[in-house]
């Protein structure tokens, strides 16, 4: 692999790792709390040690094992799948392995690596393992600005029917005035556009203004309809709070008419129609609405 490219990838890997969310720095294996990915006593990466380890890795290991330690065709095994690395805790396995002698780029003797160097290398490699995990820090760097603003505007005003509810004018109902500056990372704007309630699995998106609540209209037998914000609804009970703040509670019966009104129905229905190109175009267009 081109050496300049290797150095660039190493730097990128390090940058990803440093900019992403990180647990508190530590120099050792610790028992984490609650449910977490991987063994409870996994090594908590010390970023400073990992950074020192990165320099050592670049000098002694990268030619064979590659910039992300995932191996190369140059007879270098994938280290993040290595049992030695995965079983290691701050050098507990890596140290004895290096003591036995392992080829280094400098042609030096791996047995002469210091204990500190081994620990630094261990942190660097554990950081590469963490990069592969579900919540890897690379996930904070998504480029979603790939669409066409003009096409997004056309969809907004045309087939998307967005303009039927939303205006770009300041002060208008459901205004999107300034929406391009509202969410920070464009991926959060994309999420808010598709899923305004922001609920659901994996949600890390930014939040926009509170959406209008779901309402219920309940008509008791022979009575007048009562409308208010949905408080509770299932197969047996219905509860709403009216505009005066009064809570209304009903037992559902065949004679009790219950109608749920979701102001975001148009957004939900859009999910069946909108294409990925429409989405990417819309995001670029809305990003221009500062």
């Amino acid at each position, binding site marked *: 692999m081109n050496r300049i490219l290797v150095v660039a990838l190493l730097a990128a890997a390090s940058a990803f790792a440093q900019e992403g969310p990180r647990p508190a720095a530590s120099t050792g294996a610790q028992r984490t709390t609650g449910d977490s990915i991987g063994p*409870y006593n996994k090594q908590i990466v010390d970023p400073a040690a990992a950074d020192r380890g990165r320099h050592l890795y670049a000098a002694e290991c990268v030619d064979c094992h590659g910039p992300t330690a995932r191996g190369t065709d140059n007879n270098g095994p*994938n280290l993040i799948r290595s049992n030695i690395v995965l079983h290691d805790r701050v050098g507990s396995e890596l140290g004895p392995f290096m003591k036995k002698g392992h080829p280094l780029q400098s042609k030096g003797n791996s047995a002469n690596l210091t204990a500190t160097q081994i620990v630094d290398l261990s942190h660097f490699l554990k950081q590469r*393992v963490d990069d592969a995990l*579900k*919540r890897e820090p690379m996930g904070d760097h998504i480029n979603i600005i790939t669409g066409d603003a003009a096409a997004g505007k056309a969809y907004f005003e045309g087939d998307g029917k967005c303009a039927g509810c939303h205006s770009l004018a300041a002060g208008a109902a459901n205004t999107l005035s300034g929406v391009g500056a509202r969410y920070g990372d464009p991926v959060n704007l994309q999420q808010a556009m598709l899923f305004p309630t922001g*609920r*659901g699995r994996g949600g890390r998106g930014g939040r926009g203004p509170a959406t209008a609540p779901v309402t219920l209209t309940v008509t008791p037998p022979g009575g007048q309809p009562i409308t208010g914000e949905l408080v509770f609804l299932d*197969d047996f009970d219905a509860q709403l709070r009216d505009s005066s703040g009064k809570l209304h509670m009903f037992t559902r019966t065949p004679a009790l008419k219950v109608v749920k009104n979701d102001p975001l129905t148009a957004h939900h229905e859009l999910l069946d129609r909108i294409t990925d190109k429409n989405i990417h175009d819309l995001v670029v267009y809305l990003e221009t609405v500062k």
Partner: protein
Amino acid sequence: MNRLLIIALCALALASLHAQPPMPTDSWPTYFGDYSGRRFSPLAKIDASNVTSLSLAWVYRMTAQSGTVNPPRGTPLMSDGVVYFSGTDNAYAVDARTGREIWHYSRVSTVGRHFSNRGMGMDGHQVFFETPDCHLIALGKEDGQVRWSKIIADIDRFYYCSVAPAVIRNHVIAGVSGDDLDNPGFIEAHDPETGELQWRFYTVPMKKGDPGMDSWPNEDMARHGGGMTWQPVTYDPELNLIYVTTGNPQPVIGYANRTGDNLYTCSIVAVNADTGKMVWAYQTSPHDTHDWDSTQPAVLFDGTLLDNQGAGQPRKLVAQAARNGHFFVLDRVTGKAIVSTEYVKTNWSLGNNAKGQPIPNPEKFPSLAGTLVSPNQGGGVNWYPPTFDPQTGLFYVNANRSFSVYYLYDATDNPQGWGGNDRSGWSESMLEAIDYRTGRIKWSHKWEAGNNSGLLSTAGNLIFTGAPGYSIEALNATTGDPLWHARLPAAVIVPPITWELDGTQYLLVGAGDSLYAFAMRAK
């Protein structure tokens, strides 16, 4: 058609559906109640006419040796008047009549993901369960004392262990969980008396020449290809076949380095119970890129099919509502598909191939700028088990219709682990009753909020399920009409089971850190 002929055909169909061994009524000896995965009880003392008379019999609150109880997601077992169940690092035996604790076994796993525990297996004198640090443990049913303990997977490779073992002949079948790093899935059999390993079956090819190797770009990717086995197996004693359902391929979202179908991930695999050798496999999600493992239960039943499916003779069938939103009915002798349809509307496939497998649409693979996909990562259904009622001939599943956006984080040609994820989403939940002969939805009961609960069907023409509002709810199995509910302090996570003792039919569910037993005492 002649009316007498119709009645005769109906009787024949019903007889064929009952050809499998009847489910026990005085016990619940496996995760599914029997080997079939149907979660159907022939008990009918609770029925549509009296279900509103169910009364609370007892509550058992779980404790842990240290920390808080991680609510279990398994299904309790019951035999000889004792309920056995497990949580992470804990196992319990409770009097089925009173809820009185008989014993509580506790150990603290020093390592391992404490995500959940999905239940136990049992034989005549032992119960078996897995721990987060991947020990398979046998406890005496009488005293809760450890008989043996074996390590089944390496937690430093990010495996963890939670699945309910199954006891089949003289084998304890254990599976493994964990898709954070790229490892091979497997199931293995242990001697019930000694714990010694009898055989191990890898769900992906491990060496040159293994079946399925040509569905991977190289041996290294195949050996690290995933296919975890985190749901209990089902079993046909006549065929002596275990039906293993397998997880997603690795890397999970990044796919650039695993061109091909990636066998035998996302598959139903028939394995000989005594040898651990694969007999056939059917992949329900070729080349999955959305974390849609197909570990949902493989439900076994015998049924009579329509004319164009070779009607006339009862067939041995296996059905699955897969996480990818598709419903499959296969011949469980041959593994050939008979029915393959969507049970929720999806947007990711280009239709079915000649084998009935959905063809993934490359345009719906995860992308850097985001791909809108339905269902979301949670799937059309997840871990919570369905039920099949041989009386109605309907397959019931709590389904989700959902959307999310899948992002590729690692755009290199060699992603590892995950390499992406989905984010946020919208969903709606419904209980669906599916005609197994056509895959058509006979009825669908829409929930007012999200609902992820396992199911139980009974000969009382009832479906029991957890429901929104922290309820346990009964619905009419024929019509889907809600009939009864009871509100609990937390959402129902432990799926309902039932048994009869001393002439009383009980219903047991778990919510939060407690078990709740209801009884039909009305005469």
